[in-house]
């Protein structure tokens, strides 16, 4: 179930028209789609069918998306992408902490939704293959990268702002430290979430990332350029899985 083709997606949203449109769009992009208008329908659908992913609206009458998401987590159900109208950072983090795998903010571009669905499916497939779950945080050279909140902390503890392109690139690096990664590999690994930001070349993203994490961006020590064409993340990376 690597991408598209046979993937079965359950769309849960109380807005019939929106549900139908999402279903239609996903259908056009090779997904098999089942719709549910509320928690009750969702539970029923889950009992009957097998789903690879649930697209879940946050604000619904009756059981809210957060409650349903928690329920799915307890059932050890399929991964969840939240549709949220609330854009603030706090809600995003809460949504992810409650167990959602990703979120899109309304009004979203359907292309973005498809990209996220594919990214989540890819990640899930990788976890299934490696038996490896997303750690709480990665630590390197005193820096700390928290995937859930998309937060990067400096050795001094200050939150350092990074663009989504830089974040995805850094995630690709910390998951594969001390390995030479070619530009193509990086492009492929990092484009999961933000394809738009990668209109810029990998080299530009790398130099921006260096400016954020290197003591001297002109003499990089963490991300080194390899002559044969590629980059090497030199630092030791520690994956933190238990809350401190």
């Amino acid at each position: 179930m690597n991408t598209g083709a046979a993937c079965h997606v359950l769309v849960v949203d109380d807005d019939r028209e929106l549900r139908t449109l999402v279903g239609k769009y996903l259908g056009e992009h090779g997904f098999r789609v089942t719709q549910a208008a509320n928690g009750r329908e969702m539970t029923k659908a889950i009992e009957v069918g097998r789903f690879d992913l649930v697209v879940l609206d946050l604000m619904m009458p009756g059981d809210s998306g957060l409650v349903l998401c928690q329920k799915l987590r307890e059932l050890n159900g399929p991964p969840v992408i939240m549709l949220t109208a609330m854009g603030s950072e706090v809600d995003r983090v809460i949504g992810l902490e409650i167990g959602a795998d990703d979120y899109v903010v309304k009004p979203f571009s359907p292309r973005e939704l498809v990209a996220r669905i594919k990214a989540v499916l890819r990640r899930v497939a990788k976890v299934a293959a490696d038996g490896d779950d997303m750690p709480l945080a990665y630590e390197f050279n005193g820096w700390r990268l928290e995937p859930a909140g998309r937060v990067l902390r400096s050795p001094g503890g200050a939150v350092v702002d990074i663009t989504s392109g830089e974040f995805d690139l850094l995630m690709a690096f910390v998951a594969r430290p001390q390995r030479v990664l070619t530009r193509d590999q990086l492009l492929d690994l990092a484009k999961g979430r933000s394809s738009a930001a990668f209109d810029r070349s990998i080299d530009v993203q790398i130099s921006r990332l260096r400016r954020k994490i290197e003591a001297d961006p002109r003499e990089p020590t963490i991300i080194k350029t390899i002559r044969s064409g590629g980059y090497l993340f030199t630092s030791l990376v520690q994956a933190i899985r238990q809350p401190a």
Partner: protein
Amino acid sequence: MIKGLIGRFGLAARIGAAIAAAVIAIQVLVTLVFLTHPPNFLPFYSARWLSGSAVEIIKNAMAGATEPSSVLRNLANAESLSVRFDRAPPRRATSDPPWPLNRVLATVRSELGGPTAPTVEAVGMGPSDEPIPVVPADASASLPSGPLRSGEDLLAPPFFLIAADLHDGRWLTIEPSFRTQRRRLMLSLAFIFIGTLLIAAIAVLTARSLIAPLSQLATAADALGRSPEIIETPRPGIREFAAIHKAFETMQTRLKRFVGERTHMLAAISHDLRTPLTRLRLQAEFIGEGELREGMLANIDAMRDMLTETLSFVEGDASTDASASFDLASILISLCDEASDAGAEAKYDGPDHVTALGKRTAIRRMFSNLIDNAVRYGGAARVSLREDATEWIVVVADDGPGIPPESFEQAFEPFQRLESSRNRETGGTGLGLSIARDIALAHGGQISLANAASGSRGLIVSVLLPKALAAAS
């Protein structure tokens, strides 16, 4: 308990009580002084007593007493006279003083008698050292003279000096006791002083107890606009203040409810619009490639931006973000990079890392708005970050036409768009600067506008953030 008792009185009763207490305190003081130091209302001396006392004093002195206190011993009303020993006769002494002192002098002389009697001289003296005649000089001649007859007495004025030559090189001088009078004067001064202090103390205490609930109300009123919570203040005991307090609480509740309803409504509208907007966004995808779809998508994106901005303005202080340490420079770098990725001209000039304390997402939103404005209205954003001793200074400059200085303040007002000088097609809600200013102020900072110096174009937005960011918690 006393507080509870006083608490039941009204404002008028309290002020009245304060005045009454002050008056009573002064009366008590006056009575005490009167009882312990009864005033000497008649400063005149009895001529008989004076001559008798003078004789007694001179005799004591001749008997060998050398101290003023010892010559005055056993003398009735001794405190009314002061005595001193000199080496020379007093300058003002005369053997022919005006009436009635001439009679006092004659009496003293006759009573001392004998060849060893000291010379006694007297003078009437006024405050200005001049003799004050009690009767006109020509009338003096017709008045009786010589020593006082038995049973006769006269009133002697308090201006006299009786000097006696003791024939042993010493002169004895007897005068009315000014010390007693001075003490009385000091006493009355002290009394005025103590009384004033007493009144002041009572006034201050009363005023303080009156004002305390008012200060609490003032603090609460000041906090009203800042805190989303209802501000509790203790109910004052004074009836009138309790009424104000109640009115204030009612007002506060109504105000919060009113603002809450409005905010909620605005948020609800902005929020609910997202679902149809999402539908629209999805529907546009099915139109197929073309100019029509691109136009629709652009409009939908513009609407989305407005909704996002309105929501963030409405949420404003309600942001639950805690203050935390963050990298200010990285925010500016990211924002400039994102803007240039979107095809705009945006440059950052400054250090790569600057650690600050505050609400990171709010600070990011502020600079995002400013850079967005610069790109949208000014064609380019030139961002710089520098520091002085106490502040970080972030300047966002653009290449646009600037805005007239008289419109600077207007530019910060919510939903204001300075259309006269700016392109109507550029969109936006006119909330960007309002939000930015709210955020800067909430962090104890400032935000100001200026136009580029003559010769160049552009608007310059300066944001000052204190290094010890007074991060609104």
